[in-house]
Structures are given as C-alpha cells and as structure tokens.
C-alpha cells in the first residue's frame, strides 16, 4: 500500500471517527470506545478491500460483513452513510424511534447492514453459513466477521470455529478486535480468554497478528488470507479502545458513554473537523 493510499484511508477514518462521536453525542447514548477501536479495520475493509455497490445493498455477489460486536455499530453506520447506502441525514436519528439506525444493527432496516447483530457471539456462525452458501452457490464473494475480544468468551464462537474449519471456509475472514477491554474491565480481569491467537491456531485457523490501526498491515493480512486454501482466516487486530481521541483512548469509561459539548469540540480539533 503506497503512502498516498495510507494518507487517504487515514483521512477517511478520521472523518468516520468524528461522525461516530457526533452521532453518540447527538443521540445521548451509544458505545463510542468500541466503535473507534475498529475504525481503521472497518475503513480498510469498506474503502480498500470489499467488493460492494452501495446502490445495490442486496447484490448477491457482494462481499458481506457482519459486525458481530454489534454495539460498535456507530462506526458501521458512519461508513455506510458516507459510502452512500443511505443519507447522512440519518446520522441524527441514532437509536431513535422509527429511524433506520437502530440501537444495534438490524438487517432489513439499514441498507448495507448484512446481518442483524448485537447479542454477542453469533456473527461467526452466521458468517460461516454465508460462506457455506457461497461455496454451494458457486459464488466467489468473501464474508468478513468482526468479533470483540470480550465477545469471544461466548461458547457459540467456538462452535463456529470448529464448523468453519470443518467446511474449509477459505472464503471466511474474521477479525478479533484485541483491545484488551470489555464492559466490566480488562479481558484478563473478567475472563480467562487469553491467549487468543494460540486458541484460533489450535482450532485450525490460519492466524495473523496485525496492528489494527495500520492500514497496510490490515490490507496485507487480508491478501494473505485470500491466498489461503482450505482453511478460514483469523486476523488478530491489536487495537486501542477509543483510538484517535486523547480523552477516550484506553479509558474503559468510554465503553458506553456520551461526549459532552466540550468533548465534542475537542473531537473536532483532534480529528480534523471535516464533518
């Protein structure tokens, strides 16, 4: 990936981050920290990797993305809105009655959302189903799933891990957002989830570890994953929760939280204010 592309993706991601902060500020509710953690992974996927057409959200040959850690949805909504799946005027209706940007992603309500999510742990199984369907239907699309490092404490995730290995789903590429935090504290305080990379390797997945805020590393890892034959891919993305905002980075109080007017003003300054 050349420097120009890196710069372009960085600028896009900064704008999306600001959308997220503004959306949560205006809604008075939401999960900004988890959203900012995966902003660069999402940006790389939607702006550099995925085969999509915002004019045809249900195009059957499109690549799919399931945001399994659905509470991070403001970053997905910002991305889909900026790509033109729906009007950015919808951003002011996050979590509101009758609006298309529901509290967690809903398939069928928000154009571009490939599957409902928000109840943790379920996205990988659904992604496996999409990948099995691709092979059965002889389609060449990829299915991407983004999981949280807290989320993978759910048992169904490991049912899906076994299933994807069994079906040799080399068209399934998953990410774990490894930021070390979950709602109740650090992942090590709350659970015994670590080591994570080794677990996926033991389950027969092709594993890579990347800096989750380095566009080139993310992109290269996706290329490596696509070059694999006969096994699913896990990209462990080392991320910083709340990445991009000085007051939010690594402060788990922002797992769920609402920026004040002053904090929104800081976000404008730190993120470039391009909204």
């Amino acid at each position: 990936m050349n420097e120009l592309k890196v710069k372009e993706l960085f600028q896009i991601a900064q704008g999306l981050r600001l959308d997220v902060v503004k959306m949560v500020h205006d809604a008075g509710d939401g999960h900004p920290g988890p959203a900012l953690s995966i902003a660069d992974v999402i940006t790389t996927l939607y702006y550099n990797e995925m085969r999509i057409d915002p004019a045809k959200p249900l195009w059957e040959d499109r690549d799919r993305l399931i945001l399994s850690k659905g509470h991070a949805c403001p970053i997905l909504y910002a991305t889909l809105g900026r790509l033109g799946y729906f009007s950015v005027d919808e951003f002011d209706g996050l979590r509101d009655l009758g609006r298309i940007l529901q509290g967690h992603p809903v398939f069928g309500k928000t154009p571009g959302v490939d599957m409902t999510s928000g109840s943790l742990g379920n996205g990988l199984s659904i992604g496996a189903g999409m990948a099995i369907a691709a092979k059965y239907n002889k389609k060449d699309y990829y299915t991407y799933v983004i999981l949280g490092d807290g989320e993978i404490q759910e048992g169904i995730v490991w049912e899906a891990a076994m299933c994807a290995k069994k079906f040799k789903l080399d068209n399934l590429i998953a990410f774990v957002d490894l930021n070390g935090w979950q709602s109740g504290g650090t992942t090590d305080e709350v659970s015994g989830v670590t080591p994570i990379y080794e677990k996926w390797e033991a389950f027969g997945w092709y594993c890579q570890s990347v800096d989750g805020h380095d566009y080139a590393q993310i992109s290269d890892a996706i290329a490596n994953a696509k070059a694999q034959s006969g096994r699913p891919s896990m990209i462990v993305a080392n991320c910083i929760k709340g990445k991009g905002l000085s007051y939010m980075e690594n402060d788990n109080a922002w797992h769920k939280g609402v920026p004040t007017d002053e904090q929104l003003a800081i976000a404008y300054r730190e993120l470039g204010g391009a909204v």
Partner: protein
Amino acid sequence: MKDYKGTREAFTMALMELAEQDPRYVMVCPDSLKAMRATEFAERFPERYIEVGIAEQNAMAVCTGLASCGLIPFVASYCGFLTMRACEQLRTFVAYPNMNVRIIGINGGLYGGEREGVTHQFFEDLGIVRSIPGITVETPADESQVYKAIKATALLEGPVYIRCGSGREPVVFDRSEPYEFGKLHVVREYGEDAVLFASGFLMNRAIAAADQLAQEGIKVTMCDVHTLKPLDTAHTSELLSRCGAAVTVEDHNIIGGLGSAIAETAASYCPTPVERVGLLDIFPSSGEAEALTDYYGMSVENIKAAVRKAVSRK
C-alpha cells in the same frame, strides 16, 4: 424414498421431494442425521447435508447465514435442543430478520421423550416458539400430517416450526384426509355440547373420547388444530360461541401451547369455560409412552372428565 413410516421418515420423504424440485432446500444437522432418519437424504444430496456437530446454537445461526443467501435450510433435531439451547439464535437471528428457516423439532412431548426422561421430554417448546413474533407453528398429529405440514409450509415466507414425534405416535388420519394450512380441521361433529380441540400426538385419544362421549349422550364437535400459529381464530371463535364450552388436549404443558392459545382466543373474542388437558406444569418421570401420558392426566378418561366438567360450567 418410496414410502414413509412414522413422523421422522415422513419428514425425510417430504424434504427429499422438495429437494428434488428446488436446489434451495438444504438440511443442517447438529449430529441429528440418524435421529431424523435422514441418512438417505445425505446420500442422495451430500452437498446439501450440512453437518455441524453437536452444536445447536451454531446450527441455528448457520441457517441464518444460509437463508440470507437465498437458501431454505431445514434444521432438524430434538425439539427442546432447538427451542431451548438455540432459543436466542432462533429468536434474534432467525425470526427477527424473518429468515426462511424450517425448524423441525422431533420427540415433542412426553410421548416423544418417554423413557429418556425429562432431559429428552419437551413440553415447553410450543410456548417458547409461540411467544416469538413471526414464527409459524405447526403441530401435526401423525406421519401423514408431518408430510403434509412440510409440504404446505414449504414456500411460506419466514420461519416455520414443525413439531414432530418419535415414530411411536399412532397413525390417526388416512393419507387422503385434507390438511389445509392455517385452518381448523373438524374431525367429529356429534353436536354442540362442547368443542374439543386437540393437537399433536394425543389426537387418537381425543377422537376416542369424542366417540365414547357420543355413546354416553354428550355430543361434542372435535377439531384437530394442526396450525397453532397463526391460529384460525375466526373458526375457533365461532365454535366457542356455538358450543359454549371447550376442552383442549395436547402433549405439552398446559401453559403456553394449545390450551393457552384457545383460552386467549376465548378471552379476547368469546368468553367461554375452557378446560385444559395436558401436563399440569410439573416435571414428569421417565416411562413407557402410553402409561406415562395416562399417569400424567392425559388419558381418554381424563379427557372425558374434562368435557363433562366444561359442560357443567356452561
């Protein structure tokens, strides 16, 4: 497959016929292929047999992925494992996004689980699925009704739950008997002293009770309710109004299933005394199916007594 015997073989035969006609039909198994008597399907359509191992939650969510890509998956296993272990996947990821998934739950009721004990006796499944928005619920009584229920709902939009048996259930209906999705099926019309609603594997007992009561001077109208949701409320209300007393018969807890559905309809449209025959909200023992259902209050005599009581409350 040339013919079927029992509800599980009936399922497999119906599925194979659908699969022959339409490549969208696939089967997802949480190690339930043999239990479903579906080995022949796997041999005939190996690429459409999706075995995920003992993992019902994953099986249900995989169905969502498949259905979202245009396929029509049947997920089939013991009904309690699908409706309880995988309840959230069924509710949030199959029903909420209105996926075309067919859930085939076998060994329903005490009749289905019998000697295995409570871990395999499922008498809450109908209450669970009925309370989830958007799921069609079929409760066929025997093998030919299972076959017909699968065919009748094959092209419905959205999820369908079909409660099947164990193969032990008696054959009640002739294969030529009509099966109209969403409608009550009147089986006996002796009179209007009471209306007797039955669904599922106790159908033979309900019919026997209606026949014996007619000999004893109590004339009932007896209906098979094979579509529990959406319930045929128009016809149900009309019968409740005409007869003025009702009895429900089901191999399920009296809470949540047919008894509740009829009582809710009565309360909303036509207040009527309703007596419910079924499992009386307790955990039962293991035991042989006929003895077990007799012991827990679902015998022909129990049904007759419930009718007499309902009539006395008019």
